[in-house]
């Protein structure tokens, strides 16, 4: 996501581009907010006022807001969001718990890398949706298959990024570590792990998006609760405004969590912040 706000090749351009690039973080946020408002207004105009698309299938923002209020006041939102949240967090924690150690192991040991790597890539390349019927069959109903799908969606970006981070640790730094007397363990702690951190966070950011999509896919069928169930129930009863409100919330969650990951990264790994020059 950082690439969006990167200023790009600095070639002394002028005009709006330079102005935008020159904005302070707060200014950028303001401009973005402005854009969002314009976008919503356009949407409202096309669907709500001009009626170019049947609003049952594509409700205007005002209706979505209405749907959100309905969900909120009926208490449906709170209970279901809580269920989803629990599944998401559990699944993500499992993914992190498996992904990081296994990634580190892959980065350390060539045999593990050569065995786990291809298998991981294979599963990663397979559409998540393909696991959906299997997950339901294996884990039954409720939160089980959701956790499974969240975990399996999130684990590979973490795993593969951590492994890549370990493998691409600058050999020159490793040499420096060795020269200054670091033992195997110290080298691990002081050199490999810190240089893997940026990769880990890149993986976490990808994982957040994939985990959220996995969660919705899992909840869309099979479970009685959760945001996916809210979406499908609302869709089945043609309360599309509520369905879209639920989707919007999921998107907000996804984007919000990537931001959280970025914030944590800034805090844990201040050196990864873009150079000031």
């Amino acid at each position, binding site marked *: 996501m950082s690439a969006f706000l990167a200023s790009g090749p600095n070639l002394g351009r002028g005009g709006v581009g330079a102005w935008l690039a020159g904005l302070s973080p707060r200014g950028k946020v303001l401009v973005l907010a402005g854009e969002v408002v314009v976008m919503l207004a356009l949407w409202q105009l096309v669907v709500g006022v001009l009626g170019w698309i049947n609003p049952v299938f594509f409700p205007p923002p005002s209706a979505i807001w209405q749907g959100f209020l309905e969900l909120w006041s009926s208490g449906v939102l709170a209970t279901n969001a809580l269920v989803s949240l629990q599944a998401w967090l559990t699944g993500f924690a499992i993914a992190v718990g498996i992904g990081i150690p296994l990634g580190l192991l892959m980065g350390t040991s060539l045999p593990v890398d050569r065995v786990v790597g291809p298998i991981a890539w294979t599963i990663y390349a397979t559409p998540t949706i393909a696991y959906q019927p299997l997950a339901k069959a294996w884990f039954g109903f*409720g939160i089980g298959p959701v956790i499974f799908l969240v975990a399996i969606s999130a684990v590979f970006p973490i795993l593969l990024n951590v492994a890549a981070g370990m493998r691409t640790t600058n050999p020159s730094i490793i040499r420096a570590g060795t020269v200054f007397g670091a033992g195997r363990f110290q080298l691990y702690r002081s050199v490999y792990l810190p240089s893997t951190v940026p990769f880990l966070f890149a993986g976490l950011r990808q994982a957040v998006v994939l985990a959220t999509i996995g969660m919705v896919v899992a909840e869309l069928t*099979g479970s*009685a609760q959760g945001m996916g169930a809210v979406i499908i129930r609302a869709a089945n009863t043609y309360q599309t405004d509520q369905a879209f409100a639920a989707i919007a919330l999921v998107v907000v969650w996804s984007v919000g969590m990537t931001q959280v990951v970025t914030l944590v990264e800034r805090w844990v790994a201040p050196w990864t912040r873009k150079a000031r020059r």
Partner: protein
Amino acid sequence: SDPGAEAEPVDLADGEPGEAEDTAITVAIPFPDVTMYSMYVLGTDLGYYEEEGLTVEVITADNVTAAVASGSADIGVESTGTVIEAIRGGVDVDLVSGHYCRQNFDFAVQPDIDSVEDLDGTSIVLAGTPGDPAEFQRALVLSEQGWDLDGVNVEIVYPGPGSESWTEFFVNDRITLQPFYGDDRPALEEHDAKFPVEALRNWANDVMVAGSGYVQENPNTLVRFLRATLKAVDYMTAPAPGEFPDNVGEVLDIYEANDFDVDALRGSDSPWVLDGHLACQNLYFDTEAWDTTVETQSLEPIEFDSSQLVYLEKAQALLGLDNAGPEELPYP
């Protein structure tokens, strides 16, 4: 847009309908299944559609009303409650006829379940996906039969639209109660399941819809399509309620030729062998059926625009039928 407001009285000339405006018809069904949608296969195989100058293609659609509204399908078959909700929501579809005018409510429970109290603390299935209005009807019938779920602490789960998967969960003891259909029965019997509730209700199960615009532009097509479909329904249903259908052998041959597994149905002596008991030969639908659905599925009341049924009535008239409601059928 206000449903019903757009429907203008349609003038259908007396006598034979005119040439079909649209000769290739796409029928959307909600999920791949043979028995429920067999009349379209039969109509094609027996040449009824060809006689009307039509060809019919059956496709599946995740959301039938959307498929119809978008023009991907000309005709859609969808459960009545869903169609009512869609029309309420403002989807531009017209209800053109009934499809199955009755519903069977057959429930299996695990061998150790004797009464509704025994379900306490277990998982049960009432419908495949959340938001399926049939869930309320099933609960209603259950409570009418002495299995009122209101007082019991059960978890209602949704294993997906196909009843085969419900059965698999059932025989693997993941659920204690499920609705079932004829083709699920052998597996359930093998599992020693009990069938505490077997009932038939004269409630419209599902209906056919078409896009409002399509209806306006293709009156003759619609009449011709319905006439052929009526013939196909007649071919597969019994001459009178409760009797054994005449053409079972031929129908099963046609199913088989269309890649369906019919071994279990051959040699059956049940009058319900083709699920034909669920259909009315005249593809009945009217305001009463609408209101019953609204009531039994606990839907918000909404009025039915019966002018939508002119094509059905025309097709019925051409075949000498009237739009009579379903007769009482005693459960065997």
